[in-house]
């Protein structure tokens, strides 16, 4: 057979030589890996021509070369392998072996409107291998980035399924609520990348400094995450199926007092509080009689699901025929919450198609559709954020002496008196907090979000090296949320009248970008030019209604208009627009000396007419030392790049219409016993609001040695953000209208980032160790007036002030416990009611009196000083093992949950540790004050008593996999099959006493932004999970 082919080839060759008009040479060959496996999909191209093809499933290619190509070079490339170049010469058949590109030195990185070779990138750009992203069972790509890139700090807002994720690149540049990076998915910008399945991702690049991100100008101050999704390879049809099933458990629960312990400490406090107070303030004791019949309920366990199911399954088909390539996938993700009634389900579908229609015309479509259903429970905060207070918080402080169901009625117990014929005495003994189990059972709050995200593009290759691309992107979300607050409880006190709230939102963003890329080489001078415009128009529409007083609370009947109470309607429309012009010139001399300049001009509708436009720029220089002659012949340095850049970029992420005030329409009053509608200003505006800008200096070095075994990247950055956009609280004497957003302050973020990667093998044993770490110094350089944040009730717990971090905790400092009267007498005066056993505060101003107004101090912040990750991957024959640790250090957490369960300000349950260690004359604790409600005004004040270290190291993932040998698979027509077991969040090392040091962004901070982070309201914790998975490729 082979001979026939050869003969035929020779024949053709003869014809080609004989007939000059059709002189063609048929070249053919095979491309294989070092192990002898055929490599399909490799690109085979005759250099400096447009003639090329791909290898087929057997790694075979055929190519017609023009005559006289004998001096030409055949380049064979494949992602993940070193490109091989072969001079054609007289040969017509080739056998090419591609070596794996361990170094990824020539990796092509997507950097925004263009791709660049790794070796030429001057900005701080990190890439993440997509395989790493799919190892951890998470719903979104943002979560998967955690610990993978130095300087990128990822934390989940709460552990509740479907909840948001906070991603912060290089610290907090801004005080307002958006420090979120910009995501660019296949060229289309968005703030929300959650609907993309991690399985669909081909590459991720994180642009961290100005020289890398300035091309995205106005929106790039917080960094840019570029995501490219997969596309098929020519002549290689692949079916892939990945499936994972696991069980989740809470990482840690705080041990609480039992009923016996509750009764004992309650009575102790009753007796303490009778001293020196009028009798009408005394509380009743829990008598032995009452105590004998009490149950002992673990309220926290009662709201938990024992083994909550987590599963994700995805199927993708990819391939290419002729000039068209495609990728089609579907993904199902389902997570049952570890707390009852909190679930998340998502179905995602993707179609990517591209076609080289003509030599000069390429066009294609990327389309991602998803539908996600979230069953929401109050997962963080105290309810001030509008989504219900954390149900865990209710569970923690509910007394263990209250049965879940009333013995009298069989229904959920609301007030303790439900068990005792409504006797109010029991409410005073055990408190009247909500029954968390009942709350969850009656919880009905569902959100369904459908999203379509994608683009259509056209690329024209106009001249050699000159291309024009036009993208039309669409991001369309339609969301429906229904919440029914059921009426129940003692005397129907909860949610009376019952109420249904329905909201429908429709958001769409259209992006239209047009840009030209031009590459040209003059001798050793290489130029790349990018020039473009981008127009973005976003529109948010919402219509909602409420109805109340439903006679029948069955879920089949609680629909709008079935209530008999007052109905309300609402409708809103908001929009914003962004128009940009940008350009970038890259230059290098012989790939040795490199430079680039970027300019971008942005106009944003969010600012008033006079402040709309902003100009942003960046410039950078680089030096490939390894290309110098004096290093040319060394045997161990593969790459040594020094690079430095400086730039100024902007931020416009504030709510729409910040320049205008708004009038609220719901301020009625009754005249003549009839409703009269009243209006009042509900939000203040700032007509002078303008761009926030960030000037960023970055200097770095990239090093690769020992044939790429060791890779290192080190970056130093100094980022100063000024004219910060802040929702600064204003004097409360200005009324209740929402404060305007203002430009105030200047913030420094300075840091060092290091990423290392070492890979090697010992016989059949391969290993890769990749640690990364980042140091961050965050400091407010100036601020017109200090900015209060982190409201707790009507107090503020943080103060953003010159010389301190954004959201620096600001409170009284606990100095221990007063042990005796002389201790009280010799210490600064803390007020007349202080007794031994009460918390002692530090007299910061030395005035001899403790004054809350003058004795508060800065005591740390929620911003980690050090973050890092460590990934270790081991392989032996068909086994693979990976271990991934992640940690954050130096941050503080304010546990307001501990104020609830150790502060002793109501008849709430207390922690086991407080019960066992609290101050008594016999147990002179210096940490936990005496049990007394009347002393809570002093003891339970927000102070460092409730502030703890939030540092942690967590074993995020441990995975053991086994790849079934090919010899077995061939019988079943399977290309590859791997099975694995993994565990997520198996171990956490922390001193934090709460449930989870990682989950500290609460619902309350939604309006407060990053100046209210690190406040734990009993936030839904991350789950620990045990998973089994399988990856199959056909």
């Amino acid at each position: 057979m082979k001979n026939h082919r050869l003969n035929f080839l020779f024949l053709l060759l003869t014809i080609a030589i004989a007939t000059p008009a059709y002189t063609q040479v048929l070249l053919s060959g095979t491309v294989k890996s070092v192990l002898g496996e055929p490599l399909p999909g490799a690109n085979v191209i005759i250099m400096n021509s447009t003639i090329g093809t791909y290898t087929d499933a057997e790694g075979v290619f055929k190519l017609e070369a023009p005559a006289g190509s004998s001096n030409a070079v055949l380049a064979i490339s494949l992602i993940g392998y070193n490109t091989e170049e072969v001079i054609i010469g007289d040969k017509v058949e080739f056998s090419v072996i591609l070596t794996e590109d361990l170094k990824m030195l020539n990796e092509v990185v997507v950097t925004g409107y263009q791709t660049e070779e790794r070796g030429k990138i001057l900005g701080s750009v990190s890439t993440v291998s997509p395989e790493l992203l799919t190892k951890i069972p998470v719903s979104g790509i943002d979560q998967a980035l955690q610990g993978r890139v130095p300087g990128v700090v990822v934390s989940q807002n709460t552990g509740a399924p479907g909840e948001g994720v906070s991603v912060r690149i290089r610290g907090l540049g801004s005080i307002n609520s958006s420090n979120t990076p910009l995501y660019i998915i296949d060229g289309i910008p968005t703030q929300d990348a959650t609907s993309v399945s991690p399985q669909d991702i081909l590459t991720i690049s994180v642009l961290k400094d100005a020289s890398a991100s300035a091309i995205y100008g106005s929106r790039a101050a917080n960094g840019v995450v570029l995501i490219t999704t997969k596309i098929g390879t020519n002549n290689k049809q692949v079916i892939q199926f990945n499936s994972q099933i696991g069980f989740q458990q809470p990482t840690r629960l705080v041990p609480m007092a039992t009923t016996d312990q509750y009764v004992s400490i309650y009575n102790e406090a009753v007796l303490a509080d009778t001293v020196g107070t009028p009798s009408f303030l005394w509380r009743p004791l829990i008598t032995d009689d009452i105590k004998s019949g009490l149950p002992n309920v673990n309220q926290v366990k009662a709201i938990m699901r024992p083994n909550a199911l987590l599963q994700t399954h995805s199927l993708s088909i990819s391939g290419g025929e002729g000039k068209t390539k495609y990728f089609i996938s579907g993904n199902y993700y389902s997570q049952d919450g570890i707390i009852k009634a909190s679930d998340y389900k998502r179905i995602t579908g993707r179609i990517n198609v591209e076609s080289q229609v003509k030599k000069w015309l390429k066009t294609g479509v990327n389309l991602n559709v998803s539908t996600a259903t979230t069953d929401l429970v109050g997962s963080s905060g105290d309810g001030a954020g509008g989504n219900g207070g954390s149900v865990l918080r209710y569970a923690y402080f509910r007394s263990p002496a209250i049965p879940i169901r009333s013995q009298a009625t069989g229904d959920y117990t609301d007030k303790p008196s439900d068990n005792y014929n409504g006797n109010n005495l029991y409410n005073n003994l055990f408190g009247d907090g909500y029954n968390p189990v009942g709350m969850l059972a009656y919880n009905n709050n569902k959100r369904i979000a459908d999203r379509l995200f994608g683009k259509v593009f056209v690329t024209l290759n106009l001249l050699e090296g000159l291309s024009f691309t036009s993208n039309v992107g669409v991001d369309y979300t339609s969301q429906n949320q229904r919440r029914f607050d059921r009426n129940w409880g003692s005397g129907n006190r909860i949610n009376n009248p019952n109420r249904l709230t329905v909201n429908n939102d429709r958001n769409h963003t259209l992006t239209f970008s047009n840009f030209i890329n031009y590459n040209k080489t003059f001798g050793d001078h290489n130029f790349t030019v990018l020039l473009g415009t981008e127009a973005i128009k976003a529109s948010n529409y919402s219509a909602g209604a409420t109805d109340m007083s439903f006679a029948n609370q069955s879920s089949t009947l609680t629909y709008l208009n079935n209530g008999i109470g007052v109905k309300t309607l609402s409708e809103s429309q908001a929009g914003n627009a962004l128009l940009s012009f940008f350009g970038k010139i890259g230059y290098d001399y012989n790939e040795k000396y490199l430079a680039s300049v970027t300019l971008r001009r942005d106009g944003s509708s969010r600012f008033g007419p006079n402040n709309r436009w902003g100009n942003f720029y960046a410039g950078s220089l680089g030096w490939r030392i390894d290309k110098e002659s004096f290093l040319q012949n060394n045997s161990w340095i593969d790459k040594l790049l020094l690079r430095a850049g400086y730039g100024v970029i902007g931020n416009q992420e504030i709510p729409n219409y910040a320049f205008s005030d708004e009038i609220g329409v719901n301020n009625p009053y009754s005249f003549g016993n009839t409703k009269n509608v009243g209006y009042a200003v509900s939000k203040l505006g700032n007509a002078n609001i303008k761009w926030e800008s960030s000037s960023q200096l970055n200097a770095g070095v990239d090093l690769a040695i020992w044939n790429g075994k060791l890779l290192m990247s080190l970056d130093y950055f100094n980022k100063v953000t000024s004219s910060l956009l802040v929702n600064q609280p204003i004097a409360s004497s200005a009324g209740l209208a929402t404060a305007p957003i203002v430009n105030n302050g200047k913030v420094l973020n300075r840091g060092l980032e290091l990423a290392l990667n070492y890979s090697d093998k010992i016989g059949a044993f391969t290993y890769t160790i990749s640690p990364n770490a980042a140091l961050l110094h965050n400091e407010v350089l100036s601020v017109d007036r200090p900015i209060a944040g982190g409201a707790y009730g009507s107090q503020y717990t943080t103060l953003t002030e010159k010389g301190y971090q954004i959201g620096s905790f600001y409170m009284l400092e606990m100095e221990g416990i007063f042990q005796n009267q002389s201790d009280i007498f010799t210490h600064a005066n803390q007020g007349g009611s202080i007794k031994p056993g009460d918390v002692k505060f530090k007299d910061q101003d030395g005035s001899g009196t403790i004054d809350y107004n003058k004795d508060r101090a800065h005591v740390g912040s929620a911003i980690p000083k050090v973050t890092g990750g460590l990934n270790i991957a081991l392989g032996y024959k068909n086994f693979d093992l990976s271990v991934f640790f992640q940690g954050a250090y130096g941050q503080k957490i304010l546990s307001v949950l501990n104020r609830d369960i150790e502060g002793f300000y109501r008849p709430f349950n207390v922690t086991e540790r407080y019960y066992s260690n609290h101050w008594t004359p016999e147990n002179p604790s210096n940490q936990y004050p005496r049990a007394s409600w009347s002393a809570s005004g002093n003891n339970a004040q927000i102070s460092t008593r409730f502030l703890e270290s939030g540092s942690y190291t967590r074993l995020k993932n441990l995975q053991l996999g086994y790849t079934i040998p090919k010899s077995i698979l061939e019988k079943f027509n399977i290309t590859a099959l791997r099975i694995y077991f993994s565990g997520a969040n198996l171990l956490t090392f922390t001193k934090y006493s709460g449930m989870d040091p990682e989950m500290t962004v609460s619902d309350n901070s939604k309006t407060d932004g990053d100046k209210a982070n690190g406040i734990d309201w009993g936030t839904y914790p991350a789950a620990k999970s045990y998973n089994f998975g399988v990856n199959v490729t056909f």
Partner: protein
Amino acid sequence: MKKIIKVIISVFLVALSGCSNFLEENLQGKFSSATFFKSQQDAILAINGVYNSASFISTNNALWVFGDVASDDATKGGGAGDQGDILFVDQFNYVRSNTVLENTWKQYYDGISRANYVLYYVPPINMDVTLRNRILGEAKFLRAYFYFNLVNIYGEIPLKLIPPFSSSEVNIPKSSVDKIYTQIVTDLQEAIKVLPKTYTSSDLGRVTKGAAWGMLAKAHLYQEQWSDVLTAIDSLDAAGNYSLVSVYKNNFIDSTQNNTESIFEIQHLRGQGMGSYLSQYFSPSAYNGYYFNAPLQNFVDEFETAPDDTPDPRLDYTVGRAGNKWVNGEAFDPSWSPTGYLNRKNSEPKKGTLPIGDSGLNYVYMRYADILLMKAEALNELNRGDEAIVPLNAVRKRARESYLYDTALPGFGTVPTGLLDDVSNGGKQAVTDAIRHERRVELGFEFHRYFDLMRYGQSAAEAALNGTGFNYSKRYFLIPQSELDTNPAITN
């Protein structure tokens, strides 16, 4: 190829040319001050919004905590530990960030801000002139009312007369108490000129000329400008047909409110988002109330009794106690309250399954009995004791004659002998004592007692509040922490 380049160039040009209005995004579906405050209708909507701040729709309005709980009439009551911040106010060991201090401050300043918007934006509106003047008068009255309460709770406070347009209107230092009173008097005098004596029934509840004279009388009373008090009350009498209603309790029943005795009454309406929260806060737990503001024995003991032990009928109109009936007609159970008493003037009978926290009861801030007692006080201070006892005795007469008019009262038909007999002029101090006693029982649990005690002076105030952390230097509450944290012009 040239064609393609042309297309590309034109795409760029289109993008460029679109930019002039591409970035225009105007507020939609919501009013702003640029689109509101344009018409007569807008002016009415805006003034209605100011009244909203005076109401007890929002629990921020905690006037009762200061007026009653902080006084010797009441204690916090309620469940043990429930709303602990109220107890700290009661005991005068609160901190600046106390939520009661914070919320009331914000609520009343919000009212001032709303009034300031009306006073700033309504004058240029092209509308009926009489109506415009009336609206401006209403705004001035309400601003004076808000300042009056603030200055009596917090003492020296910032005086704000312009809406919070920028930090120069927001960050204002404290003014002296006198300066605040000067503004209150000015506002009221200007309001008097333009407010009508009465309204048609659909506007019933808006402030009248009489209300403004009444507030002015009160402002003078608090500044001890006695003859000005009398002038204002004479003008009030001339401005309206005010009189005591024959049945005292009719001032506190929804269906008989807004009567001839009412001078300034905060309106509430149930079921439509305008209900008062007070009823739930004061009702027993059995009705899902929180039983706050519990009367103390000392208050109950203040009421006179006839020789046959028949009490002043106002006692049982004011207080729920053992042996008497509660608002729904059921027997009062003293275990409902830690003191054995609950206050009932703002407790509404339960209406079916409707939530108790949405009550239609109005709060009567000022009624004619108060005016009569102010008049008595001013006359007595001007050494006109014989004249002073006339209005005082009018108040006592109405009280005792409840037995002639209230058919529901046990013993209805005849006034018990020796009950609430007329007071004679036993000298200035005796009349002073009689007036102070009468104010306490007549106006009990109408949120005035603490403020009365403070203006009676150090010895009276300290004697009444003995046993708490009070001393007269604490007569004004501390400006809340949030103001200090955000307003650089105020440091203490």
